[in-house]
């Protein structure tokens, strides 16, 4: 599947978009929402996150209003990410140059993201929030559109698959980084139901672009959060609902 001639400058530029989310010291999404509810967090050099919160002496029975709002914002933003991913896979129907063996996965994964966006929207409502409908504009504009344009210009199936891997890694990391913001076990469980799937998707695509490299395609033992969206990707820059 991998094109041995993938090292031309144009393609390299697409591949270099990986990790772009943390370029320039972008603040991770979880950091903003935590800050919004009186917490803070930092992404250390390895991408792990240390966040801080006012310590409970016992598990709280009622979460602070701000924390609840921040949690809803995580759910809404994750809904938007899943919606963008679903739309991305739908758009691949027009990519006639995409390798044939990728097509079944495109169909299946698109359906997964559609279902998961719906599940997260439902979860938002159950959490007392307003479900978000629509894609994540930041993700669409900053990564998907330019990378897709470059891939189309070169008719590069490998670049499309690389993009899919990056998007899935972003979904997994963005949801995972939000876990500590969510206050209710049910909400955490709803998000990890999605992030685990995104992680499986990401692995599959990485395996496709590095055929046979079953070890190299693995994520870290503790999923790295380097790929998480920055705070400005939140659909609620200042969570209030």
């Amino acid at each position, binding site marked *: 599947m991998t094109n041995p001639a993938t090292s031309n400058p144009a393609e390299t530029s697409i591949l270099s978009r990986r990790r772009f989310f943390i370029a320039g010291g972008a603040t991770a999404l979880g950091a903003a929402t935590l800050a919004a509810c009186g917490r803070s*967090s930092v992404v*250390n*050099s*390895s991408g*792990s*996150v*240390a*966040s*801080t*919160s*006012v*310590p*409970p*002496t*016992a*598990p709280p029975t009622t979460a602070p209003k701000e924390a609840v709002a921040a949690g809803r914002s995580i759910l809404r933003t994750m809904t938007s990410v899943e919606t963008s991913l679903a739309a991305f896979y739908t758009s691949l129907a027009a990519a006639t140059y995409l390798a044939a*063996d990728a097509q079944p996965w495109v169909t*299946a994964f698109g*359906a*997964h993201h559609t*279902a*998961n966006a719906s*599940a997260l929207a439902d979860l938002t409502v159950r959490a007392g929030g307003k479900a978000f409908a629509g894609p994540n504009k930041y993700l669409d504009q900053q990564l998907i559109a330019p990378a897709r344009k470059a891939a189309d210009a070169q008719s590069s199936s490998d670049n499309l698959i690389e993009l899919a891997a990056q998007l899935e890694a972003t979904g997994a990391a963005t*949801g*995972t980084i939000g*876990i*500590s913001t969510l*206050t209710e*076990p*049910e909400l*955490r*469980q709803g*998000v*990890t*139901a*999605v*992030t*685990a*799937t*995104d*992680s*499986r*998707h*990401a*692995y*599959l695509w990485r*395996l*496709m672009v590095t*055929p*046979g490299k*079953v*070890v190299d*395609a*693995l*994520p*870290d*033992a*503790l*999923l790295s*959060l380097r790929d998480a969206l920055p705070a400005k990707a939140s659909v609620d820059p200042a969570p209030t609902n």
Partner: protein
Amino acid sequence: MTPDSRLPESDVAADIGGPDRGPTRRRAIVLAGGTAAALGAAAGPFAHLIGAETAQGNQSPDITLAMWLVSLELAARSVYATAAKADAFDDRAKSLATTCGANHGAQGTALGAMVTAGGGTVPTDANSVLAMQFSNRFATAATAAAKAGVLEDLENGLAATYQASLATLRSAPIAAVAAQIIASDAAQAVAWAAIANGPTADAPLPKPDAIPASQTTDAQFDRTEFTPATTTTTGSTS
């Protein structure tokens, strides 16, 4: 593939709160990898920071659950120690087994740090029920593909177990580490599904049904069934 431990302990202590912040500004270290390890080094005095104590001062159910999860990680690591030497496996499968074993060791270490921070004692014995069940299945699997299928089941079972654990975990730091582990184990399950789906030796891919629409708890290892024969505990397990 090991938990990051580059966050200096001094940073942890500072983040927990120094005299300049005062007790009301004391903060908990939360989340992920190296921070967990660093917090573990800080040990018992900070147990309350991760919700490790009940209002009565007893060890919380979260810590008890984390201890059990550590025992599962130790069991997984032991299964992989055998798998990495299996004659039926080629070098690629052996390498994958070695990596997965190391990853489970790292995951156990991260959780163990939480246990230590919560005032518990980190288990040193693998969960004997899980280890025996999967070691036996692995030994009796007739082919490399079948053995890979056993390891796929192991990873899916662990991912489902962590997913189920999130239903009861109250501690945000422990839940955050669990979330990172779920995503990692889910990917490892796909890796074994690819190996199991040979014989495309040069570029194996899994069967489509190896990737479900969402993570469920269906394959979880039930705590009442997978009770370790020996687990070191301290304090009450209310």
